[in-house]
């Protein structure tokens, strides 16, 4: 009997903590929208963060995008050859890279590279009382640290996503060119022939939502870090795990919405 009560207590406590966390995350996000629209705007810090985030992720995105382009082309070719449809390869690559792989791969890389960086940076500022120091100096740390970083990821990740798609398509083109001697113009013309306006907007919307997710989760985890240096590591780790999970959920939701719009 005692054991059941104790189990019940643990379960209720866990549920309590879970809903408390959800409510806190909601309030944190609501606070972002409230404060993002209010003066003062820290443009200089926003530009600085965009530069930092872009620079931090650029080498990895270039490498990954290029490799994905080559590997995806190499793996798709045999299947299309079976049906004698290799001429469809550029179109397939265009659809796969621009609509799905570009935004998703960029988001996953950035959640690892940028999200963890934000979580660790803010977490370390929190546990060393640097955030409190801002607060007692009459500076709004949420506005200076959170709003600028979330806006920076929301702006930068779509740009990085576009860049990743271009690099992946160049990788694909190099592979296609080496096999079939296809010209650059024809490859890209075919690659984009099956992509319409809605596809492009879906890709942009996805990248914007992913960027926001990475920024807000990284900031939320960092801003609420506790328990000294171990808390910093935990914040960075949770920022990556949670943002990756939410990115996959968002991917499904956005694709569903896009397909639903397409039916009209």
């Amino acid at each position, binding site marked *: 009997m005692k054991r059941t009560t104790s189990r019940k207590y643990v379960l209720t406590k866990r549920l309590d903590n879970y809903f408390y966390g959800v409510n806190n995350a909601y309030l944190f996000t609501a606070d972002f929208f409230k404060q993002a629209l209010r003066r*003062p705007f820290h443009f200089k810090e926003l530009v600085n963060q965009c530069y930092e985030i872009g620079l931090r992720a650029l080498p990895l995105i270039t490498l990954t995008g290029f490799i994905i382009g080559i590997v995806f082309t190499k793996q798709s070719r045999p299947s299309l050859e079976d049906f004698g449809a290799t001429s469809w390869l550029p179109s397939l690559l265009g659809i796969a890279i621009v609509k799905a792989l570009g935004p998703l791969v960029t988001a996953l890389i950035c959640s690892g590279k940028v999200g963890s960086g934000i979580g660790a940076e803010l977490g*370390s*500022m929190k546990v*060393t*009382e*640097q955030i*409190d*120091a801002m*607060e*007692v*100096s*009459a*500076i*709004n740390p949420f506005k*200076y640290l959170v709003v600028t970083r979330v806006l920076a990821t929301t702006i930068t990740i779509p740009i990085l996503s576009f860049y990743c798609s271009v690099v992946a398509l160049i990788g694909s083109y190099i592979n296609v060119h080496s096999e079939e001697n296809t010209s650059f113009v024809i490859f890209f013309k075919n690659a984009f022939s099956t992509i319409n306006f809605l596809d492009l907007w879906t890709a942009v919307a996805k990248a914007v939502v992913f960027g926001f997710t990475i920024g807000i989760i990284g900031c939320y985890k960092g801003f609420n870090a506790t328990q000294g240096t171990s808390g910093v590591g935990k914040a960075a780790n949770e920022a990556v795990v949670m943002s990756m999970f939410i990115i996959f959920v968002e991917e499904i939701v956005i694709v569903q919405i896009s397909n639903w719009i397409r039916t009209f």
Partner: protein
Amino acid sequence: METLHVIDYNETVISIKDLYKSFGDLHVLKGVSLDLHKGENIVVLGKSGTGKSVLIKIIAGLLKPDKGEVIVLGKNVDKLKLKELNELRLHIGFSFQNSALYDSMNVRRNLEFPLMMNYPKLTKKEVDAAVEEVIEAVGLKNKLKEMPASLSGGQRKRIGIARTLILKPKIMLYDEPTAGLDPITCTEINQLINEVQEKYNTSSIIITHDLTCAKATGDKVAILIDGQFAKAGKFDEVFNSNNELIKEFYNYNFIQ
């Protein structure tokens, strides 16, 4: 060391009445009351975990009390809106235990930052002049280009104090200003606290468990034991008392 400033007992800059604060089941402050007068230095002594830092964090509006009133410069901290609280915070300097310098900024930027964020219309010349003044006050003029990571513990404390002084506060709150420092640096920091008070005419609450610091900087000391002030008054008055807990605290420090 004798302090040369004049204490105005008619003007209370901080008035704390019956303050309570708990964290879950842990009751940290249990009815604390304290008055800080203009020009006065009060040292709050106590063992680790007795809620000394919590007390000054409540004064600065970083934590909310469960019960009780904190009046700072005539304003009830708990009842202020964020904008009003920030206006009040411009008059409060807070020196953190670990200095809390911004790691990503060099010393100059650390000092400029609060000024530029609060007074964006200041010219570069005015900001530079303010930086020069405070860095000279703490005696680290040659460290402006250095990053916080390259400074010693004592230098970090000094820069932390300089950063608060740049906003010309009326009240200074020091959280363990001599913690983790060697005896010579402790003496230098104690001197600096007294110099700050004389030069900037501040009133201060100094949180410490270091009796040398308490004696050197405090006009009054108050001992926080088990969430309440066991005794407050002049240093000798307090430590000449027959209270066993105070004696225990004194002897422990003496042995240390």
